[in-house]
């Protein structure tokens, strides 16, 4: 059962949102329910804190005039208690802080109210389908996650985005190469090798996610990734790496 929540301080808009969601669940006969629809952010927060392991779908407004919490704080607290929460922000364009929310909350979607009722309705319905789809799939294969921390903040991402970790140019700095992202963070490669057993240390300065390798050049001792990036592979490690690839039956081209 995928639980759905709404916090919207305007009663009219809350009613419309409620109706759209219940209707869509009913029509598609999803294994979902609209658990809570409220104008008070605190009410949802109390509910989230009391219950455990939820994986809910949340439709949140951003500004709640006259209340202690705003949408960003509410979403942050929801994330703390419900790590896999799928959060959708429904608000006017001027209230949206796309970059900030993307960075801090990683929401499922932003729905801009100004675009008109028809568009909002369509987007809400799409988001319900996407969330439901992910919810059902997630139960089959629990996705491996990778995390790094900065300034006491933990950033999570799917392991399938990680290519490799490289020692940086400065002391104690590492560069995490993701499929579409480079992340520099403070750490030691030896500590990371211990902390992430799913990664493979191919070189004194490279810690690789071996699943993401597409080609290994045994002559040049290089490992290639899909986007063309490459890592050095130490001679001592080559044998172990090849054995691991063979054992796990990954589709890596060898030459």
């Amino acid at each position: 059962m995928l639980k759905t929540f709404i916090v919207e301080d305007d009663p009219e808009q809350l009613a419309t949102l409620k109706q759209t969601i219940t209707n869509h669940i009913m029509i598609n006969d999803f294994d979902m329910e609209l658990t809570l629809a409220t104008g008070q952010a605190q009410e949802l927060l109390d509910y989230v804190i009391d219950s455990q392991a939820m994986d809910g779908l949340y439709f949140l407004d951003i500004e709640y005039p006259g209340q202690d919490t705003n949408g960003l704080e509410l979403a942050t607290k929801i994330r703390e208690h419900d790590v896999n929460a799928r959060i959708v922000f429904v608000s006017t364009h001027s209230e949206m802080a796309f970059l900030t929310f993307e960075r801090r909350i990683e929401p499922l979607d932003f729905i801009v109210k100004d675009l008109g009722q028809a568009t909002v309705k369509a987007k809400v319905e799409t988001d319900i389908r996407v969330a439901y789809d992910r919810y059902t799939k997630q139960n089959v294969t629990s996705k491996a996650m990778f995390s790094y921390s900065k300034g006491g903040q933990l950033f999570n991402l799917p392991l399938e985005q990680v290519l490799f970790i490289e020692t940086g140019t400065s002391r104690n700095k590492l560069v995490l190469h993701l499929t579409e992202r480079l992340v520099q963070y403070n750490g030691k490669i030896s500590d990371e090798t211990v902390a992430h057993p799913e990664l493979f240390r191919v070189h004194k300065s490279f810690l690789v996610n071996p699943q993401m390798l597409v080609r290994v050049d045994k002559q040049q001792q290089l490992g290639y990734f899909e986007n063309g990036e490459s890592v050095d592979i130490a001679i001592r490690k080559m044998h172990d790496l090849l054995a691991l690839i063979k054992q796990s039956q990954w589709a890596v081209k060898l030459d």
Partner: protein
Amino acid sequence: MLVFMLQILINRELRQRRVYFSIILMALALTGIYMLYDDYSDIMTFVVNLGLLAFVRRKKFFIVTSLTATLAYILFSFFGNYATEAIFRTFDFGLDQWSGWLFEIIGEIIVTACMLAVVASFKFLQKRYPRQFNDKVALNVIVSALAVVAVAFFAITTAADNYNIGSGFLGILMLIMVAILLINGGTFIYLFYSYTMRVQSHRQALERKQYDIYVNNLESSYQNIRKFRHDYQNILLSLGEYIHTGDDPQLQRYFDEVVTNSQQSLTRDFGHFDNLERIKERSLKAIIQNKFSVARQAGIQVRLEANEPVTEIAIDPVTLARVSGILLDNAIEAVRGQSNSQIAVAVVKYPKMVELLVANSLRHPIDRLDELMAPGHTSKGAGHGQGLATVRELLDPIDNVTYEISARQQFEFIISIESE
């Protein structure tokens, strides 16, 4: 004669025919008088020289120049004699009949050269500091200083003549006077400059203060607009809910028409003052303000996100300003020419960290982010890379600062600054 020549060279106003004529008259008269009676010739020359005042409009300036000229002439003719004597002594010339003439000629040449040098330096000073030469106060001060010097000098020479003081002693007196003059001049210049500097810095501080007041006013009125826009939008939205649940198709149609029109003007980018009041860090604020106005002039949509007031950022403000300047320049350069170009900056606050995000829309996806940061790499197409190496150089050595680059739907550069 030389004094007059000097006058004409320095003071452009004197280049008239009647001036030349009267000078010749004066010179002839003076020479006549000197042939009869040679005492106090300097004073006489100066007084007669002042007769030229009739021809000029900038009286004070003229007094300055004539005093300078007279004093310079007296000084140089005095020291010129010594100089020529010294030259003769080094070359071992005897002072017989014809070499007396030679002595006079060389002496005059040296004096003339010195006077020309005075003209040149005067002109140079005038060109270099035109403001001081037009400033009434400064001119007054210079006039009085020179007048004092002139009076003192004339007094000394007169006294020396009357009491039969030897030329050696007079030389020493002159030297002392020159020293005093120089010291006076130096002190005056120092005082004058420190005064102007103080006035200038005071004016700058005043301007800065007024600018701050202006920006604060702008920000607060912008906040008011924002609040109004927000309320208005919400009223429209809930009104819309009522109308659409009701049963009046004509009203619905009319309402939709009105709303589409007003929504357009409401969602339009209002200005680059959105959220700016939350950024209290001055250098960052100034950079964002500046670059955003550049971007807006280029027709680029800008957006600033700051959810909480940002006061202290644990990084050297100069580094922060340089880095954010480069990143914003890059972003502007990258989106220039795109049809729907957008730039966004977010300052995100965490309990123990502040992150600065700079994002811009992308025309083409970027495949190799790692190559962007390599020194010397510039990708004209995406416009990034130029300067990114500099950013890296600036940020890499700082322990509490790390960065991220991402190119999913848009290009993003994130600087994470952990509080120490």
